């Protein structure tokens, strides 16, 4: 078992002929992922890293049985790429592309959801389950098979923490980088139930940051529905207010959305909240050790 990706995940890479698409196709394959097809309009018949390229996702699905996509196409074309994937029957869509207008993402989210498809991202590092598959760009080197689940709104900070878990001799069940954009396809509260029901996950690591109220929403969920131990870290305690967060956010958040409110919410929901990223692996190791003693 794992979350969202399994050994049977067959990935099509949209935008495979671009630099990032090509580099990460090789990396995904090196991770052991079945990358079965690439799509770049006009490039049908070519190959990238040994992967056949098609003009359309529908062709890729028909010819290769692809069931997940990793989208690298530039922001102005990302909405179209997602719609194409969903209409071709793809039900797991990882969007690496950054700078997609949130208005586009509102459309993409509704469209995918109405058809039972899951979007992870945009502007995210994707999903990896060591020993099974990776759909995205998280560096292969940080992983080791294990029983710690990781969900994160951050990219590189995730790598940092996942790597720390590995360096503490532990490993990960599945790691999902949710992306830090205002509108994401999968949020903490969407991902937590998947880990709750994943028999391969014992401990949960949650990496959040300031802005929005996704961590507060997650805390509500954890309090009522999540039974596994949670270690959390919130980045941005020192960020100056208002430099990034707009007025709009403030109206909606109504006094939530700061590092302090997120930390308080998570702690009151029973999570252990680290003050520094390097404390996370220690806390996880302590929990694992105490569970082993029971």
């Amino acid at each position, binding site marked *: 078992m794992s979350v969202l990706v399994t050994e049977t995940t067959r990935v099509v890479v949209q935008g495979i002929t671009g630099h990032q698409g090509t580099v990460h196709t090789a990396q995904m394959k090196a991770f052991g992922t079945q990358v079965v097809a690439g799509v770049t309009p006009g490039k049908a018949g070519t190959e990238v890293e040994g992967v056949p390229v098609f003009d359309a996702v529908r062709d890729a699905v028909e010819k290769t049985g692809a069931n997940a996509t990793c989208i690298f196409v530039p922001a102005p074309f990302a909405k179209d790429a997602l719609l194409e994937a969903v209409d071709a029957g793809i039900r797991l869509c990882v969007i690496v592309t950054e700078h997609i207008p949130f*208005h586009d993402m509102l459309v993409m989210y*509704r469209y995918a959801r109405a058809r039972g498809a899951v979007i992870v991202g945009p502007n995210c590092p994707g999903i990896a389950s060591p020993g099974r598959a990776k759909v995205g760009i998280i560096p292969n080197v940080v992983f080791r098979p294990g029983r710690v689940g990781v969900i994160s709104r951050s*990219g*590189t*900070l995730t790598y940092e923490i996942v790597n720390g878990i590995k360096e503490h001799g532990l490993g990960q069940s599945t790691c999902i980088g949710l992306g830090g954009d205002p509108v994401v396809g999968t949020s903490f509260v969407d991902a937590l139930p998947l880990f709750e029901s994943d028999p391969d996950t014992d401990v949960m690591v949650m990496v959040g940051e300031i802005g*929005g109220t996704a961590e507060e929403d997650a805390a509500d969920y954890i309090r009522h529905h999540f039974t596994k131990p949670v270690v959390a870290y919130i980045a941005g305690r020192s960020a100056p207010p208002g430099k990034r967060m707009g007025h709009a956010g403030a109206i909606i958040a109504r006094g939530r959305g700061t590092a302090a409110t997120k930390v308080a919410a998570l702690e009151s929901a029973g999570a252990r909240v680290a003050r520094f990223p390097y404390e996370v692996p220690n806390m996880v190791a302590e929990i694992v050790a105490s569970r082993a003693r029971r």
Partner: protein
Amino acid sequence: MVKLAEWRGKALFRKYGMPVPSGQVVRSADEAERLVAAGSVPLPCVVKAQVLAGGRGKGGAVRFAGSAAEARDATAAILGLDFKGEKVREVLLEGKVAIGRELYVSIALDRSLRAPVLIASGQGGVEIETVADGAIDRQPIDPFPGITGYERRRAARVLQLTGTLAGELDALLRGAWSLFQAEDAELVEINPLAVVDGHLLALDSKVIIEDDAAFRHPEYAEIQDDRTPLEEIAREKDIAFVQLDGNIGVIANGAGLTMATLDVLLELGGRPGVFLDLGGTDDPRKVTEAFLLMAQARPTAVFLNIFGGVTRCDTVATGLVAAMQQVPESNRFPLVARIRGNNEREGIEILRAAGVTSIPDLRASAEAVVAAAGGTP
């Protein structure tokens, strides 16, 4: 995030059929006097500094004038003011109106709902953050099919508008929704939305346009924001660069890691002065440019904290070494590096050859840079 000045927001309101007072924006006292004298602005008029910060009324950035000469004086008094860190360069002159009720209406993004929300309150004219939750009505709007008639009717009931005024609100909300979508706005706020002589009038505007949609809206590229000159250069080079109060420069990649690095430095007694997020670059020239920009900000010490994913460690190291050779001797500063992730070994080797040691532990490396900057870890 492009925050539009009041007059620009009102120009959009007009474009989308939303009622605004007649007015003129000026950049000199002469111009103000001339336009008022020519009858282009009704008298008496309001003279308002075009700054983005709130609280203009109490802060002396709004004045009144009953004649062309008074308009001149009021404009002269406001232009050039430093208002909460913003210099006043533009002034809006508008006919003064007899304000009846003051209402609040906005369309904003609710991240948790992943939907725009229509927010309405009968208590307008004050900061909406100060209004009690119970006095604010929120309705999520589905982008498909867009704002509906029944949502607009509910807003009218919340605002206690009936008859003609309900009809005017209906049209205004349709306009606001069109604006929100077509202009790729993050926020369309009308506060106060006033009842004036039995009609609705948008007396202020707050419109924020999303940065990521810039490819659809070249017209907003020219609008200056509240950035420092170096931040402006960084923006043109597509580097996230923010100046703070301290003396340590931080170069990291990814918003989360950058914020976490600042958190650690502050906790250890350091004072971050600039932060620069390389993002997911894979181009050594961009690293070089970023480093030279950092040098211009004259930090006491610099902390390079990279976890390579899309970005490869050797790329960063190569760009960094190239930049170091271009910084003049007089501007040099202590550099503490920590590079991890993809091609970590190659990157560390390149740095070592240039005389820079990478400290793999985050806490240890952060302590080193705080010490180098003269702090007491």
